[in-house]
């Protein structure tokens, strides 16, 4: 069974530029999560989808961050414009039940 796929794995951009991350969850997993992981910290939830509906986006900085999961499968997280403080690892996870979340390898973003 394929795991959660994320791309790109690494991204380097200059501040004020836009950036997008893509996630394909495990087949059959209706719940999808985007997390932010700063260096030396645990993951912090940005947004959670149940199918195509964003059911928890309370931690998503909506002035510059947006996300979509149009067909209830893969998802895109966008930042526009990126700031220096956005440098971090962006993790996607999916789950079939409310228990185990399966994480992808993450996208490491560096904003210069």
């Amino acid at each position, binding site marked *: 069974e394929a795991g959660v796929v994320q791309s790109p794995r690494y991204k380097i951009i200059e501040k004020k530029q836009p950036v997008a991350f893509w996630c394909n969850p495990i087949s059959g997993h209706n719940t999808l999560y985007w997390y932010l992981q700063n260096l030396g*910290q*645990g993951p912090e*939830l940005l947004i*959670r989808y149940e199918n195509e509906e964003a*059911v928890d986006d309370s931690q998503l900085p909506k002035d510059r961050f947006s996300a979509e999961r149009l067909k209830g499968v893969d998802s895109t997280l966008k930042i526009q414009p990126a700031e220096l403080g956005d440098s971090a690892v962006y993790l996607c996870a999916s789950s079939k039940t*409310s*228990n*185990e979340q399966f*994480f992808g*390898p993450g996208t490491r973003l560096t904003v210069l």
Partner: protein
Amino acid sequence: QQQVKQSPQSLIVQKGGISIINCAYENTAFDYFPWYQQFPGKGPALLIAIRPDVSEKKEGRFTISFNKSAKQFSLHIMDSQPGDSATYFCAARGTASKLTFGTGTRLQVTL
């Protein structure tokens, strides 16, 4: 507000020794407490988990001890191996199945 406090920040254990990582929480509504293992360049992977109605859960060399009254839980890794060297995160699940993670413990197992 940090709701799950994890210690130590880093840990060095000799091969064959016992690694112990501790977590404390504040929210009594948490109903599920998983531990995740993360290797460099990888996403976290579920290692073992426990519910608050159980005081201990063991899976192979990994054991969670849970103290509901003290609002504390810990991960014990018996017979620690170099391959166990990774960062470990405790977490707690609250309302709407939201996971709150600790800050992580970087474990190094030396030969």
